């Protein structure tokens, strides 16, 4: 079963616009991670945010976490056609060396039109 639910399931925007994806989860977490996947290939780690953090930035990416609402959002600013991919949130209940048993959501399929 999948803990996370991404919203929207699909998103189509123009190059240069911002893309926002949301993720909700059900149980307590140590950290939440966002991954990117191109055309059914391997996943690429984008960013990790721990349960005691509220916001994190990495380049054009901004992630927020609200543990009281059990939700997270990923914002991609100034999107590019190369950002076209599926984006997944994944929760890790334990963290540390006992962690890495990730539970993924269903993903958001982002299309950025040139």
């Amino acid at each position, binding site marked *: *079963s*999948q803990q*996370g639910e991404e919203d929207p399931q699909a998103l189509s925007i123009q190059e240069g616009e911002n893309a926002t994806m949301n993720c909700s989860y059900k149980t307590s977490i*140590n*950290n939440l*991670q966002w*991954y990117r996947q191109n055309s*059914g*290939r*391997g*996943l*690429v*780690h984008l960013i*990790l945010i721990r349960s005691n953090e509220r916001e994190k930035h990495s380049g054009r990416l901004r992630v927020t976490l609200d543990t009281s609402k059990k939700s997270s959002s990923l914002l991609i600013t100034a999107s590019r056609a190369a950002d076209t991919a599926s984006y*997944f949130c*994944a929760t*890790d209940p334990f*963290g*540390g*060396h006992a*962690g*890495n*048993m*990730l*539970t*993924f*959501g*269903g*993903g958001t399929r982002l299309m950025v039109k040139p």
Partner: protein
Amino acid sequence: DAGVTQSPTHLIKTRGQQVTLRCSPKSGHDTVSWYQQALGQGPQFIFQYYEEEERQRGNFPDRFSGHQFPNYSSELNVNALLLGDSALYLCASSPGFPSGSNEQFFGPGTRLTVL
């Protein structure tokens, strides 16, 4: 520095057969996790290996088994294949103690088709 590698890339089997998928972790990583990703869905955790033992297991039947070798590489075995086992099988590695980093590095996956 090679990343996570998986073999084979694609595989076609028939119902009832058995399959073995292989994974070599990123250099310096000692923990290997396996995920199943059905078409259009997110990956689902199968199990994780550390120090040649299964440390965590997801909600998968005993038909799914694995192994980790002393060089940290790993195999995923699936017996008595069902049509529903058709999926992309992903291997992920992460650095071990004392790093404890939770960032996982994924391989390109093995696409299994069961006919």
